[in-house]
């Protein structure tokens, strides 16, 4: 009976769940509730993904008002894919959070944490599913506000300054998006994305629309931490509670990447953005600089969380690079990497969180000799790290493969080569951690408090690790979804209306 409402449920469930969670004063209860809500959203997202693969686009008119007068939820293969990643990772992180939060966050703030997490989830789901440009802004802000809260919940005082910087940058980004949406509205009189696409297609080239797009892209670039605008991300991910880092690294920036894809491909149309405005070159250069600069910075970090954060920025470079290739194959590689990167970064941050849980530090010195003391955690770190490097039979290899293939199809030999050499830097920074973990003696060999992480942390971590391997071997689901998504996105923007 509720099947037709599925497009809206991944948003509404956590949105209703959040205040309920707040009312459940007990920490345990709130945890259980939040996890169940998140898990249920995940289930619905999977159903949505399968449905969209089967039937194409699902449109849902909120309040019964047909678009463009009302707000529309539009679930297609592309956002169903990202939605599954977000809700899935959220569920795993919540399972993981139980104990990690116990240790890292003050007891009476646990309910607030779960509430904020659910709000963040609702926001991210909303951004993904919505078919309305302004509605996107609203959900962007829900998720952002919840995120600032989540980051600042950490006990480290540097989390506060990190959260503040995040807030300032994030708000500037959101305001830029608002300006851009305003300019689009000014020229078209509509906010519905499909409608916008159809009406923008009527203009050849228009200074207002160009500026609007530029502002949206800059705003989204801030949110997704594209290279020169990434400075907020490393401190935020470093000092946030582990569970938050794991969740955000895998989802928040990815959602922003999806937003960029959505604006470029379904609203303005690749033709307009790349050929009229020459955005592809800009994005391409920024992406490559991001890959090299941030990978390099990652190699010299002594804090492992910071290292992973910079690595995330570099990995975002790969996604943007895929998009900027302006081919269906490139876009598909970018989308695939969104999916795969969530798996690997989630696992890595969980492993780092587990180490933090036991040793109380994320410094590389804390990893001395951990290979023996926390074998399962470090094994997870190793496999996820290999995935980041792009070793075959891991998910990372698959996305790298498609990315390079896409570059080569366009005869971009240099770019393909740069992609591969870029991943060499990953060997360095992951290798550093593995080396001290397996070959250094622990600083204090008598310390018996450092033992394997609790089971509740290991289970979600290993689910992600196994997913890394599974999706590195059986790529049929991820690749076909990404492929369908990119094909769908890549048809001329004006034609998207025909799907309705």
């Amino acid at each position, binding site marked *: 009976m509720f099947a037709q409402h599925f497009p809206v449920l991944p948003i509404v469930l956590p949105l209703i769940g959040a205040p309920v969670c707040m009312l459940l004063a007990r920490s345990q209860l709130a945890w259980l509730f939040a996890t169940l809500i998140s898990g249920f959203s995940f289930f619905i997202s999977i159903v949505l993904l399968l449905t969209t693969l089967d039937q194409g686009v699902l449109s849902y008119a909120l309040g019964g008002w047909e678009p463009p007068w009302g707000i529309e939820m539009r679930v297609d293969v592309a956002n169903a894919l990202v939605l599954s990643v977000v809700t899935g990772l959220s569920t795993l992180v919540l399972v993981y959070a139980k104990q990690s939060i116990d240790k890292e966050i003050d007891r009476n703030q646990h309910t607030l944490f779960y509430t904020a997490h659910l709000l963040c989830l609702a926001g991210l789901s909303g951004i993904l599913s919505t078919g309305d440009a302004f509605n996107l802004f609203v959900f962007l802000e829900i998720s952002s506000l919840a995120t600032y809260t989540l980051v600042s919940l950490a006990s480290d005082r540097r989390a506060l300054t990190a*959260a503040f910087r995040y807030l300032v940058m994030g708000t*500037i980004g959101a305001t830029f998006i608002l300006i851009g949406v305003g300019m689009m509205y000014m020229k078209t009189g509509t906010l519905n994305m499909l409608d916008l696409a159809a009406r923008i297609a009527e203009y050849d080239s228009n200074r207002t629309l160009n500026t609007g797009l530029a502002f949206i892209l800059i705003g989204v670039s801030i949110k997704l931490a594209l290279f020169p605008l990434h400075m907020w991300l490393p401190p935020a991910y470093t000092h946030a509670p582990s569970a938050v880092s794991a969740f955000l690294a895998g989802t928040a920036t990815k959602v922003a990447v999806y937003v960029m894809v959505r604006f470029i491909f379904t609203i303005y149309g690749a033709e307009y953005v790349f050929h009229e405005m020459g955005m592809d070159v800009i994005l391409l250069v920024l992406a490559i600089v991001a890959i090299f600069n941030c990978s390099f910075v990652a190699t010299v970090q002594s804090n492992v969380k910071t290292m992973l954060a910079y690595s995330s920025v570099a990995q975002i470079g790969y996604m943007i690079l895929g998009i900027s290739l302006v081919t269906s194959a490139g876009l598909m590689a970018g989308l695939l990497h969104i999916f795969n990167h969530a798996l690997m970064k989630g696992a890595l941050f969980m492993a780092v969180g587990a180490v933090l849980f036991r040793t109380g530090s994320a410094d590389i010195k804390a990893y001395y000799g951990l290979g023996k003391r926390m074998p399962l955690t470090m094994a997870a770190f190793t496999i996820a790290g290999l995935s980041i490097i792009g070793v075959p039979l891991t998910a990372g290899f698959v996305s790298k493969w498609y990315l390079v293939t896409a570059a080569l199809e366009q005869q971009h030999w240099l770019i393909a080569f740069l992609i591969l050499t870029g991943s060499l830097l990953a060997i360095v920074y992951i290798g550093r951690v593995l080396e001290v973990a397996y070959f250094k003696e622990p600083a204090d060999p008598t310390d018996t408090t450092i033992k394997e992480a609790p089971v509740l942390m290991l289970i979600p971590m290993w689910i992600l690790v196994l997913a890394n391997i599974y999706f590195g071997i059986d790529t049929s689901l991820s690749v076909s979804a990404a492929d369908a998504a990119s094909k769908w996105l890549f048809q001329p923007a004006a034609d998207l209306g025909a799907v309705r």
Partner: protein
Amino acid sequence: MSFIVDYYNYWIVVFLMMAGFYIVISANNLVKKVVGLNIFQTSVFIMYISIGKVSGGSAPILADGITSYSNPLPHVLILTAIVVGVATTAVGLALIVRIKRAYGTVEENEFKDKDALI
């Protein structure tokens, strides 16, 4: 001439936005940054409302004898945006209070220095 008459509103708004934006990125004091953010956002709100204005129109509340109404849609959007803005401000200010307690200062360069000491 009509050029200026057509756009003067937007130009001043652009100036206001940029004034706010400048405060955000140049200010060292966090409270001032937040004030700048608010000015920036408020100016964007004015831009939106300008979009919806119809010359000779009236407020979009049904009344007898009035035929021309301004566009209500930007109003709705900005209502939302204002609330969003103040929500962000509240969280930002709360962060500032905590930063002051943790660092003893709200000047950006000073707490950077203090962290460098650790």
